[in-house]
Structures are given as structure tokens and as C-alpha cells.
């Protein structure tokens, strides 16, 4: 029944982990059967062709997709990735096979109604194969033909109130951890800020005006569940500045073994009875905790809010109430000079609507980067090239020790002329009066 033999791919159907091959085969069959009599707008056998082309790659050990041309929807410079097969005769169903990025709802909650709408649209006008989700966070529609792009966009905006996500030298689709929706540790409403900034910066998201891509990610706390620090040009990480809230009774319950440590995350192995010293106090990186009789004490001004103790005893300890976030900047993948994580720019800022302060930081950075960033230069690379001092200058911030992990160890300080009494211009003739040649 299948269009191609796939002896290699077939070997990926065994094993317990969900098999994408089995799933693709089922989709291929679903399209072939076409029980709902859909007028498929792209070749009905495109999924067969996916299987075929991937099987060929498994055989050749080489990819069979070519560079995409510039395709997209009118007026947008992003949201669509062009893709063509390098064996179009063999696999006509995927000869053109562009992806579309659909901006996910923040926190990635869905109703089945809405999901089904997307499925119907994509089954009808595309391959019916998708990613839930892409690495940036979008819903990815994998594979359609150029002439369907506007149709899909039209239908999506008109029927489903849904826009595309970013690609190209744009703001990319912002994303966040689930935050306050279901996490007791979230220090601000990650979904709300993600939503509001996505909408505030629609123009930047759809129309390339930047030197290169730019990403926002929002973590509700230092646990970093959306990995903001590793993969966003601007990484927002929740934190607090008052004291960790302690429920001493609950502490005793942990000590007494009533509550499972780390909320049960380690229950698959017998690690022995809970030992608050070994498991919490001794592992606190700042060593700012101790037991005072039956009371757990924390010297909060020494605490670096690493979350460990809170993670281990969620029923006893909670972040403080005076919360906000840190802003770090510049994370990126290896190209060109090696990967970067984000570096601390604003140690503490309130993350409250209407987010004016935060927008000020964002826009100061964009102004600088758009002015001085080179083509295909990420923010992190610009900071490296021009120096952290320049970032501070352009965002109007004073240098503080929190900006660094450690001060410089080379003494190669670039003094500005106005910092040095007398300036840089000197008269060598005058000098030579006191210093013969």
C-alpha cells in the first residue's frame, strides 16, 4: 500500500518511545483513505513522499532538502521558511515544502476546539505534519506549497484570530514558562508579559528591521524552565528581594519524613531517610542556612536565590513576596564565535504592567543594536565586540559589581580622555625639557 519501501525507517517503529515513523505512516494512510473527502490542496501523497525522502537520507546519510528561496506572505518578512527537495522528480509531493510558524499561545495551553481548527486547516492546505512545538516555541506547520501560504494566512487571521510567528531578522516569537498559571514559584506573570510584549512589538516581529534575529524568553524563577538564559537575546528571570518565606512546621514535617523531599522527584530510588543537613543546609551554595534548635534559619542577605532549598522543601519554603525579575542579555547559538549565555544587565526590576521600565530597556538596546550591529551580528556579539561598558552606556546604566562574576584580571583598562586629568594631548617639547633624549 505504501508508496515507497522504507526498510530503514521501519526499524524505528519498534521500541517503546512513540514512533514518528508509525505516526507518519498513519497520517499517510489517513490521507490516502480520505474518509472525510477533503479536497486536499497539496498532493495527497505528500506524507508518503516525506517518508520516501527521509528513507533516502537514511540510506545516503545525506540530507535531501535544498536552500529555501524567499517565500512568505505579503507584507511580512518572517513566519515562513522556504524549502525545496533536491530530488523533486522522485518526490513530487514534497518538491515545494515550506514551513509556517504559528505563534503559540503563551504557556502552551490549548482547548481541543482550537487545536482541531488548526489541524483541519493544516490537513486541508498543508501536509498535516506539524511540530508541537518548534524550538523557539511556535507551532510549526511542516510543508506546504507557495500558493497556499496566503490562503492559510488569510484563513488563520480571519477565522481563527491567529497570527504567524517570527523568522528572519525579526523579533522572534517570544516564549515563557508556564509561570503563575500552575507554578507556585513564579515571581511574575510570565504569560502576561510575554503576551503583551508580543503584541506591543508586532511590527518588529513581522518586518525585518534588525541586523539579525532577536529573542525574548521569560522564566518565572531561577529554575529556568524555558531556558531563557541559554537561548534568548533578552532573558527575563524571576527573582525576589525580600526573605524566603518559611513555614517552620512544614520544615519539621520534612525532617520527620512526612513530606517527600523535592516534592517526590527522587522517589524512584531509595536515597535513605531525608537529612536536612546533607540535603539542604550543606548544599546551599552560600552556606547561609542553619538550624537554630527546631527553627530553620536563613541569612537572606547572603542568599543568592538559587532555589535549591525551595525545590527540596516546597511545602516549607517559598520565594519572598517582593518579586520582580532580572534581565540578562545576549544568549545565542555557536555561530560565529561560539555560544553565549545571557549576561546580567539589570539585577532587579519590577515586572508589572504596563512594563514601561522594561520596554525602556528593550528599546534602548534595540536602538543601539540597530544603529551599530553589523549584518548577521547577534546582540551578544555586539556586546562582545564593543564591550560591556558600551552596553551600559547605551542603556544608561551604572556599572555595579553584580554585572560581573569577577572583575577583570588584565589591567588593560581603556580610560576615556575626560576621566584623566589634563587629557591625552601633551606637548613632547615641554616633556623633553625635563627628560633629555
Amino acid at each position, binding site marked *: 500500500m505504501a508508496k515507497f519501501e522504507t526498510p530503514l525507517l521501519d526499524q*524505528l517503529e519498534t521500541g517503546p518511545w512513540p*514512533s514518528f515513523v508509525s505516526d507518519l505512516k498513519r497520517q499517510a494512510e489517513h490521507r490516502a483513505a480520505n474518509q472525510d473527502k477533503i479536497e486536499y490542496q497539496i498532493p495527497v501523497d505528500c506524507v508518503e513522499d*516525506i517518508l520516501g525522502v527521509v528513507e533516502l537520507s537514511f540510506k545516503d546519510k545525506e540530507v535531501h532538502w535544498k*536552500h529555501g528561496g524567499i517565500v512568505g506572505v505579503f507584507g511580512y518578512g518572517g513566519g515562513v521558511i522556504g524549502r525545496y527537495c533536491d530530488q523533486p522528480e522522485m518526490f513530487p509531493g514534497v518538491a515545494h515544502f515550506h514551513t509556517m510558524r504559528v505563534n503559540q499561545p503563551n504557556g502552551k495551553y*490549548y482547548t481541543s476546539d482550537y487545536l482541531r481548527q488548526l489541524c483541519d486547516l493544516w490537513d486541508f492546505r498543508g501536509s498535516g505534519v506539524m511540530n508541537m512545538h518548534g524550538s523557539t516555541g511556535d507551532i510549526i506547520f511542516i*510543508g506546504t506549497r507557495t500558493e497556499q501560504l496566503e490562503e492559510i494566512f488569510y484563513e488563520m487571521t480571519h477565522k481563527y484570530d491567529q497570527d504567524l510567528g517570527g523568522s528572519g531578522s525579526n523579533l522572534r516569537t517570544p516564549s515563557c514558562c508556564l509561570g503563575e498559571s500552575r507554578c507556585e514559584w513564579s515571581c511574575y506573570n510570565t504569560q502576561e508579559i510575554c503576551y503583551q510584549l508580543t503584541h506591543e512589538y508586532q511590527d518588529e516581529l513581522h518586518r525585518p528591521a534588525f541586523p539579525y534575529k532577536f529573542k525574548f524568553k521569560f522564566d518565572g524563577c531561577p529554575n529556568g524552565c524555558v531556558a531563557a538564559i541559554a537561548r534568548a537575546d533578552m532573558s527575563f528571570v524571576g527573582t525576589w528581594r525580600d526573605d524566603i518565606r518559611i513555614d517552620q512546621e512544614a520544615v519539621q514535617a520534612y525532617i520527620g519524613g512526612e513530606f517527600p523531599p523535592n516534592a517526590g*522527584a*527522587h522517589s*524512584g530510588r531509595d536515597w535513605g531517610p531525608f537529612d536536612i543537613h546533607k*540535603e539542604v543546609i550543606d548544599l546551599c551554595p552560600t552556606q547561609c542556612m542553619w538550624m537554630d534548635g527546631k527553627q530553620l534559619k536563613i541569612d537572606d542577605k547572603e542568599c543568592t536565590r538559587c532555589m535549591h532549598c525551595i525545590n527540596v522543601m516546597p511545602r516549607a519554603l517559598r520565594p519572598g513576596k517582593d518579586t520582580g525579575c532580572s534581565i540578562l542579555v545576549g544568549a545565542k547559538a555557536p555561530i560565529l564565535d561560539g555560544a553565549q549565555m545571557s549576561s546580567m544587565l539589570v539585577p532587579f526590576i519590577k515586572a508589572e504592567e504596563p512594563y514601561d521600565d522594561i520596554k525602556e530597556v528593550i528599546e534602548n538596546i534595540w536602538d543601539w543594536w540597530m544603529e551599530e550591529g553589523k549584518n548577521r551580528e547577534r546582540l551578544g556579539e555586539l556586546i562582545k565586540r564593543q564591550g560591556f561598558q558600551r552596553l551600559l552606556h547605551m542603556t544608561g546604566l551604572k556599572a555595579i559589581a553584580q554585572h560581573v562574576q569577577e572583575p577583570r584580571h588584565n589591567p588593560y583598562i581603556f580610560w576615556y580622555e575626560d576621566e584623566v586629568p589634563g587629557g591625552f594631548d601633551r606637548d613632547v617639547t615641554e616633556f623633553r625639557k625635563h627628560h633629555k633624549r
Partner: protein
Amino acid sequence: MAFISSGYNPDKPMEDRITDIGNRYYGDFLPPVIKNNFGKWQWHEILEPGVLMHKAESGDEVYTVRVGGVRLMSVEHVRELCEIADTHCDGYVRFTTRNNIEFMVDSKDKVEPLKQDLSSRKHNEGSFKFPIGGTGAGVTNIIHTQGWIHCHTPATDASGTVKVVLDDLFDEFQKMRLPAQLRISMACCLNMCGAVHCSDIAILGYHRKPPMIDDEFLDNLCEIPLAIAACPTAAIRPKKKEITSEKDGSKKEVKSVEIKNERCMFCGNCYTMCPSLPLADAEGDGIVLMAGGKVSNRISAPKFSKVVVAFIPNETPRWPTLAKDVRKIVEAYSKDARKYERLGDWAERIGWEKFFEKCDLEFTHHLIDDFRDPAYYTWRQNTNFKFTDPYEYSAIKAE
């Protein structure tokens, strides 16, 4: 198949056009128990692998059953999960940042039926559709990229490598018996669309041959200065060449480029800028295995993953060496690390020389950093090493 218009009029693209509306409001998609207790959660507990309970200040509880998401999924698969959501969860469902799927119910008695339904669903050849797990101190879903399914620069496949590794580590997905969470990530070229550079274990597609130069077509298809500028090591220079045309055998002079092979580190950045410089090669391409990165700020700061195996060939379809090497690391870590200790923290505590010994991986010259100035800081400027064989001068001297 007949073309069916959405209503869009190609002649008047601006007519009725709706743009810049952004994404849907998350608030519209929240299950009632979530909406009611938004920002008011108090604590949580992982009741068993894959099952979380969050308790709100109101006393409300939400039970979450997490299942492995094969993130490359068909609409049929999505429709199936919608059906489950409808049956058990009032039609709500969510996806995690690592592409798992979460089904939430608002009382404990709804958990068991949900679980049974999920576990019972299997693909034709027997793999689970919705395996429960992925929480706590174990292996969760592998985030990954497109691979041979869609992208043009991969040096390996994504879905395939992920499938074999997760098949192999399936127990760890379903049990929470590791010292800490272990996050595996996969990216099919060093553009690293998964941002795998801070993962406990990273599977990275990598080329090992300099680009071929498609001289005859290069000048037509590419902007030569852009290709040259793209190279981080300045390995590319413009060059006029005399070639024999593929089509008609005629000789002609073309503008093209030349690549200094010994300077190339196979990053493929030039290929991103210029399709006439393809890198892919059956023998050259494969996988770099990295380990010891992390993202959370818990106990220790986030850190980069380090290269621990320089090359694993593309042994399709099931990459046995890859699976074995990953398993070696997971097993050594599982046996040796302390409770709450992430893989990278463990390696640093015991020393990387011991990491290689304990994981039974060979240290090769490829693992020594030689990329730009920061390389220096990864060499050893102290005498605080442990002895692992070989170490003595006479033993490390090449014959």
C-alpha cells in the same frame, strides 16, 4: 484536486487583510481550575512518575499527567490527543517547553482513568503513543530540531537519533531514580536550533569535510562577498577559475571561491549564505556528543556542555554507538553522582579525567579547545589532577 480559495484575493492582497494580531490570549485556553487559582499555587508534589499535583491556596488541586511528546506529529495524532482531552479534561491540554504533553484534571479520582486511557494507546508496531513519565529526577523528552525531515543543513537526523536514544533510556523516562534531572537535547547542525549548548547531554550533528565548491553556478546563486564574510576562520577567498561547463563541455572562466581546507572547521556558515557550497557527506557527517551543561541556577550557575565524544558516525537507522555512548554516561552518572547533583557538577567534582575513566570514553586531542583566546582557560593551569592511565611521560610519548 481543485484549488479552493480562502477568500484571499491575490490581485488585491490588502483587501480585508488582517495583520499584526499576534497570538491568541493564553487566558482563553486555561482550564477552570488553573484560571481560578492563577498566581495562587502553594505547593506541588510528584505523586508518581509523570503525575504532578499542585495545591492552591484555595485548597483546589490540579492533577497533571505528563506524557512523552513526539514533537513531530501528525494532525491525526493531535486529533487523538484532543479526543483524550475531551474525554478526561474538559477539552484542555497543554504542551511543555520540552514538547511533552500535559493532561490536567481537577480531582484525584480522574487520574487513574486518564492514565489507563493514555497507556493503552499504542501505534501499530507497538510503540506507545502517550507514554507517561518525564518528571522529576529522570530523563525527560529530548528537545530536538528538524534533521532530515526538513532542514537543508543537518549533519544527522533529529527524529531518528532521538527515537533510538529514548527507546534505550525509556526506563529513565518512566522512573525517577537518577541523582537529578537529566536533560538531553539534540540539534542537527551547529546552528543549534535547540540551543543544546547547555544540556546535561547534547547530541549535535556535525560535518567534517570542507564544503564542495560548485564553481559553475556559484556566482549565479550566491553573493560571493557574503559567503566570504560568513566564514569565522577566514578560510574562504575569492578566486577566478577556468572550468568545463557541466552542460555543454565548453571551457569558461567563472568567478568563484577557494577554501583553505586546513582552516575550515566545518561550521557550514558559508553554506547558509551560499547553496553552492554544500557540506553534506555520508562519511564526513555524524555526531558530536557533549555533556555537562545546565540551565538552572540551582546550587551551581548555568554552564555550557563540553565535547566528550568528538565523532560518532551516522549508523542509520538505529545509531547503536550513539545509544551506547549516551547510556555509558547515564549509567556512570547514575551510579556515582550524589543526590541533587547535576551531571556537569558531578564531572567537575570528580574531575573530567575521572569522568572519562568512569564513563569508559576515550579522551582524544579533538576535545582540547583550540578555538580562539578563551581556549587557554580550559587547559589545566594547576597540578591538581588525578591519575588515570596513561599519565607518565614515557607512557604518553608517541612511539
